[in-house]
């Protein structure tokens, strides 16, 4: 055998042995256990601040044979989140893989303690937690939320995800906040992050997600009720559905909106006078009425609708401004159009906002009374 052939052969053999040296980075997928959700609660133990609960998927070879969802849970407390997670890793025979965890639930108790930055830090630094995870607040506790498997849930896709992923329900009461979004709003001055609140209806064992909570630095978080949550969703253009109840004269109408377009503009006049121009296009039809309706009267119904909507949005804005919360990012809007050396200070801005002239224009677009006459 000539020397060259020998050399070539040895190179080939060397390459072939490489395949056996795949190293520790190589891990078969069945040696991973996938985390479905993460719950962060306040710990009851003394000296430990966090209680972490993980919901883990149990792998099945065929969902046809096992349509019932199966999960396992592991819980541990720790002074920091990483401490708890490190201990949790010893509770599982497989490697905890956070790549598929889609939801981070934070307990209500923890929210009151203003520790969001500390909590976020772990989630942001850990590489396998995806920045597109959803964030939510769990009431009464995060652990209870993730431990609930509602009836009729299918395997491998927890029902809770359907609320947020825009594939299942499209309710206007559900706010979807991503981890990256939450963190960005938290960091940036001028917009306050908002999170949905997940509650449990124990008797019927299902979730209720129709409230939300606004965070502001050095302030108590402010809870939005269902109506305000839906108004926020309309104003932030994140829903196409809305309902309005009109009770005027002898009419009692329910308007179903199926197309929403909201524009907001912050204008500064004379350096300190603020003017908020809010223009909202709402179109839809009348879904319910206690009285016989006539198609010809649509302009009149539109007028009623306009009046009602204006009132509701005005209430919303005055509530927000009075409380000093800004989930819509009005301040950010202002800051984006003013040079930094001409911007008002925070105090000036708060004062200006309180005195701001709010100009809400509703363009009602009721297209039908909902019945064919």
């Amino acid at each position, binding site marked *: 055998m000539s020397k060259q052939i020998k050399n070539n052969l040895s190179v080939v053999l060397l390459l072939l042995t*490489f*395949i056996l040296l795949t*190293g520790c980075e190589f891990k078969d997928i069945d040696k991973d256990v996938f985390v479905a959700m993460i719950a962060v609660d306040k710990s009851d133990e003394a000296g430990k601040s966090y209680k972490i609960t993980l919901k883990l*998927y149990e792998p099945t*070879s065929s*969902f046809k044979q096992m349509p019932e969802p199966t999960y396992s849970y592991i819980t541990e407390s720790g002074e920091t989140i990483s401490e708890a997670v490190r201990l949790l890793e010893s509770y599982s025979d497989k490697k905890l893989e956070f790549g*598929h965890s889609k939801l981070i639930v934070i307990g209500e108790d923890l929210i009151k303690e203003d520790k969001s930055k500390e909590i976020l830090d772990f989630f942001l630094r850990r590489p396998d937690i995806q920045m597109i995870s959803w964030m939510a607040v769990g009431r009464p506790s995060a652990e209870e939320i993730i431990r609930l498997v509602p009836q009729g849930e299918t395997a491998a896709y927890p029902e809770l995800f359907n609320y947020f992923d825009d594939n299942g329900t499209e309710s206007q009461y559900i706010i979807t906040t991503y981890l990256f979004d939450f963190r960005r709003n938290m960091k940036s001055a001028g917009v306050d992050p908002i999170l949905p609140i997940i509650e449990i209806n124990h008797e019927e064992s299902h979730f209720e997600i129709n409230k939300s909570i606004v965070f502001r630095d050095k302030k108590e978080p402010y809870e939005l009720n269902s109506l305000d949550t839906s108004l926020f969703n309309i104003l932030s253009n994140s829903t196409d559905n809305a309902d309005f109840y009109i009770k005027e004269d002898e009419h009692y109408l329910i308007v179903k909106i199926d197309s929403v377009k909201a524009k907001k503009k912050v204008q500064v006049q004379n350096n300190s006078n603020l003017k908020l121009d809010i223009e909202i296009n709402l179109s839809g039809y009348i879904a319910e009425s206690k009285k016989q309706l006539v198609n010809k009267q649509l302009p009149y119904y539109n007028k009623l609708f306009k009046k009602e909507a204006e009132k509701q949005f005005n209430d919303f804005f005055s509530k927000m401004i009075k409380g000093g919360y800004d989930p819509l990012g009005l301040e950010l809007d202002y800051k984006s159009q003013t040079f930094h050396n001409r911007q008002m200070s925070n105090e000036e801005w708060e004062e200006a906002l309180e005195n701001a002239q709010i100009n809400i224009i509703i363009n009602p677009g009721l297209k039908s009374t909902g019945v064919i006459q």
Partner: protein
Amino acid sequence: MSSLETVKWINEQFKKTNELTQKTLKYEDKHILLFYIKSLIDQELLQKLIIKPFFEMATENQFKLYMQALPQFQEGKSTEQIQLEVMNGNVIIVIQNEIYLLDLKLSNNDQVNSTSVETTIHGSQLGLSDNLMTNINVIRSNYHKPSLCVEYLVKGEINQHKVAIIYDNEKVKNDVLDTIRKRLQNVDKQVITSTTQLNNFLNDKRLSLFPRMIMTERPDRLVYNIAGGKVILVVDGNPQALATPAVFFDFMTTMEDNYHTLLISTFLRVLRYIGLFISLLLPALYVGITSFAPEVFRTELALTIAGSRVGVPFSSFIEVLFMLFFMELLLEASIRLPKAVSATATTVGGLILGTAVTEASLASNIMVIIVSAVAISTFVIPVNEMAFSIRIVRLFFIVITSVFGLAGLTLSFYVLIMYLVRLDSFGEPYLQLYISPKNKSKSEEQI
């Protein structure tokens, strides 16, 4: 040369053959000598064209003129030529001390075969034959242009096979033609039996992964390629021809692309390229994603794969290599097997092995799906030689990916592209979209 000398000389030349027949015809004052190899010539034709007229002609001169008028006639000039032509089925006629050659070759292989490798729904179903002359006849009768040139060469030191170079003088690039001629000159092989052998002999690199010449059995493809300025090589006794220079994208087209409407052929082309990428990347992607980055999958899929791997004793890359190995065995076996058995082999291999492997949990269900998807998409690549190359590249990808993960896969894909960019086929860059026919000379362009 006197008559006697000639006879002596011819006998001298062919004394090693035991098949040379010598025949003396003598009638009245006419006298000719015939030499031929009995098994090579058409005896009926010999009787009809030579023997019968010989006895009917009045004089020897008349017969000589008659000979010269025959279309098969050629004059014997050199000794080498005579020797060669006799071995090609010519009859030597010695008449009045002159040597004439008459091509009375008997060929039993001039039937045009129907296409078996490149089958299409549209277009001609007939391919080439095993006979060089018939093949050239087929090409010429599909390409009616006087600029079509055919050059003959004899290659193979021992078996002295005829090779034809066919091209359109007006379209072909001269430097390509020169390179081919030069490389053909340099081929010194003892035995040449197949056209595709030339593919290796004309290649200057011994270890080349991708074919630089496109093998085809379809006359319409040949005509299409000649019109595109390519050079065709045909070896006698082979129903395949080679077209060169060929670029990568030539191997991804079928003749049917031209026969369908634009939308349909675009759809088919897109389908084919998707198939190419699936067969190239899917197994490596499976290894890379399941073992290095499972978060890329949808959750359900990740769980299904994790679940279906329960009980499988091998790592994912061993599993892939194991299943691909059996698939390759199956492919190879079904080519070699007689047609009657090959269907059984595929059933046994594909169906029984597939289900049994998952039942015995030697491989996961998903793996079986992947391997069969890969097998099917390999068949989508229209030219067989490219499919072979892809099969080898795929293995490289799996090995690299199982060591370096998805980053390794990305890098090795770059390496593949870099390799393809560096390749050339007879001076034409391999990864260009198509080969343009002869560039007009600069002076022509200016006019």
